[in-house]
């Protein structure tokens, strides 16, 4: 067997000559098609005579030259140069060409993969795909290589296309049909000539590129465990697809299978590793989000001549949908709020930040609580996210000890006075639900020593192992017992009670408590 190394307008390639007659010419019918206008359509022909090879000029216009000597017929051997038109073809020994010149040990890739892992590269999969394709092209002599991998839904997606010389092809496509067939059946497809294929009409797009020879093999990895017959199960992760304008590359299917098996393992390792890296990155992003969210909250305690305020919020996930905030106005009045965004986790946290921003813009102390809630409601309805809403309690303590407030669909806070527990309910529906929502301001005079306890439903809906909820009554009992205490004392008593009640049961919702004690 001979091997021809060609450089022409189509690039450098190595073409095996399995046997004669092997026609070289500009025609697409040739065994080796040269992209050179000075080459005749059928220019020359190689034939085998025993172990020797002969080249014969087929009455070409420009003639055929062997080592710069024009010939009509001449023996050729490894090392000879054949010139046809402006194109030079170098003759090489074809003895197991692929394996001797291009042998590539995929164990090296695994070693490389280990190195990339050590570097923590998130691009591991892309790198590995490129290595696999480049070495496959070198090994097989094909012109273009593609790797298509199955997505979670089983859909094959082209992940990388490369041509010789390590060049990534950005717009190259495989035949659509062949990879899907191979992936579905797990059986190789080798199409030596698309024109001869029964489905030639379906390969129009590929044929238009001059591609006529396709080789496609599944990428399979063995799964742990085996079935009743003791045979390991295999999972197909994708296909390796090679094509070329020349016939006759990679005659040995065994080599291809060995290669595909090694490649599949390497690709799967890289893919698993990359997924782990991405999961870790997502966790890191959440940690950052969690820190930012905590940083957005004001300090969890505040004291002024009028009031002692303490608050605590505990998200049940990394980030939460509850928030508390407060701001002291110039005249000494204090505005404060506890809000609960419907839902939990990241999506709720994003809306929480929006609410916090909108409230920050409101807190100049000039508007009544009902005006603040109305405006917040309209602002949220304009940015409507389906089925997303916010319950909140917004209060203002005036310098005259009048507490005005608006309760927008929030659990009614408790006002713990010397002789009574009062629920503060006046307000309206949750904000962000109805753009026509109406809000009212409630008003109550507070006395020195009174406690105002505002909480989110994560507190009263905390459950114990028996599935019972903490509930308003237990909370009322605790509050009765802390009457007259400091805000910090009341807060820790409530937290202690609910923690003991829930025991080992995990929190299902974010939990927020704010306690104010009036001086």
């Amino acid at each position, binding site marked *: 067997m001979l091997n021809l190394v060609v450089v022409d307008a189509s690039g450098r390639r190595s073409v095996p000559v399995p046997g004669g007659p092997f026609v070289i010419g500009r025609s697409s019918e040739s065994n080796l098609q040269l992209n050179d206008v000075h080459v005749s359509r059928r220019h020359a022909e190689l034939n085998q005579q025993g172990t020797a090879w002969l080249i014969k000029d087929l009455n070409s216009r420009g003639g055929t030259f062997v080592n710069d000597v024009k010939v009509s017929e001449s023996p050729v051997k490894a090392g000879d140069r054949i010139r046809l038109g402006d194109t030079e073809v170098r003759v090489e020994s074809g003895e197991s060409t692929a394996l001797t010149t291009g042998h590539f040990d995929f164990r090296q890739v695994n070693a490389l993969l280990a190195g990339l892992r050590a570097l923590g590269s998130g691009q591991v999969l892309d790198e590995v795909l490129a290595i696999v394709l480049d070495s496959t092209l070198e090994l097989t002599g094909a012109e273009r290589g593609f790797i298509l991998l199955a997505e979670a839904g089983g859909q094959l997606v082209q992940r990388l296309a490369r041509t010789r010389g390590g060049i990534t092809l950005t717009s190259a496509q495989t035949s659509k049909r062949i990879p899907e067939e191979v992936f579905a059946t797990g059986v190789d497809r080798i199409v030596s000539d698309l024109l001869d294929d029964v489905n030639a009409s379906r390969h129009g797009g590929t044929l238009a590129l001059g591609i006529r020879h396709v080789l496609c093999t599944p990428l399979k990895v063995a799964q742990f465990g085996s079935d009743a017959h003791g045979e390991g199960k295999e999972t197909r992760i994708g296909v390796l697809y090679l094509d070329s304008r020349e016939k006759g590359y990679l005659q040995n299917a065994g080599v291809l299978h060995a290669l595909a098996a090694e490649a599949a393992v390497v690709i799967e390792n890289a893919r698993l590793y990359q997924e782990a890296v991405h999961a870790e990155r997502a966790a890191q992003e959440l940690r950052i989000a969690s820190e930012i969210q905590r940083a957005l909250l004001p300090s969890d305690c505040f004291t002024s001549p009028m009031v002692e305020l303490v608050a605590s919020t505990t998200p049940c996930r990394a980030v939460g949908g509850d928030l508390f905030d407060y701001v002291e106005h110039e005249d000494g009045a204090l505005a404060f709020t506890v809000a609960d965004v419907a839902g939990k986790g990241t999506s709720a946290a994003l809306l929480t930040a929006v609410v916090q921003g909108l409230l920050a813009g409101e807190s100049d102390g000039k508007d009544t609580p009902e005006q603040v809630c109305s405006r917040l409601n309209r602002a949220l309805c304009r940015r409507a996210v389906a*089925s997303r809403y916010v319950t909140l309690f917004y209060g203002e303590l005036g310098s005259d000890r009048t507490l005005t407030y608006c309760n927008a669909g929030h659990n009614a806070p408790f006002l713990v006075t010397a002789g009574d527990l009062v629920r503060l309910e006046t*307000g309206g*529906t949750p904000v962000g639900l109805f753009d026509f929502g109406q809000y009212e301001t409630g008003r109550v005079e507070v006395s020195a020593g009174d406690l105002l306890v505002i909480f989110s439903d994560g507190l009263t809906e905390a459950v114990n192992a028996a599935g019972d909820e903490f509930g308003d009554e237990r909370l009322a009992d605790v509050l009765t017992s802390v009457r007259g205490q400091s805000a910090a004392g009341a807060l820790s008593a409530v937290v202690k009670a609910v923690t003991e009640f829930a025991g080992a049961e995990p929190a299902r919702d974010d939990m927020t408590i704010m306690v104010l004690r009036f001086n």
Partner: protein
Amino acid sequence: MNISRRTVGDVCVLDIDGPITLGPDSAEKLGSTVQGAVAGGESRILLNLAGVAYVDSAGLGELVGAFQAVKKSGGTLKLTGVTKKLMDLLVITKLASAFEMFDTEAAAVASYGA
């Protein structure tokens, strides 16, 4: 959560069975079922919530969303079979007055008038 649909007179009754909570098989399903009924020309829709033991915040949002979708199309969505737990939630959130609620299905159907 399961939803079965039947017609009583000219009222489209949706029997909801199971908690209405965040997720495609629950809250979102309620929303899409009601919207499907509206798109199919129903204007009198009654949700029978007798089989609903629990509604979370997403479920409540979806109930309101359904209410508004029906209202926007010129129809009316009413409730029957509201459990105590759901009623508490509707009272806390002051949504109890937004919904028309009936103790019995017959009373609800009759309320739509001829």
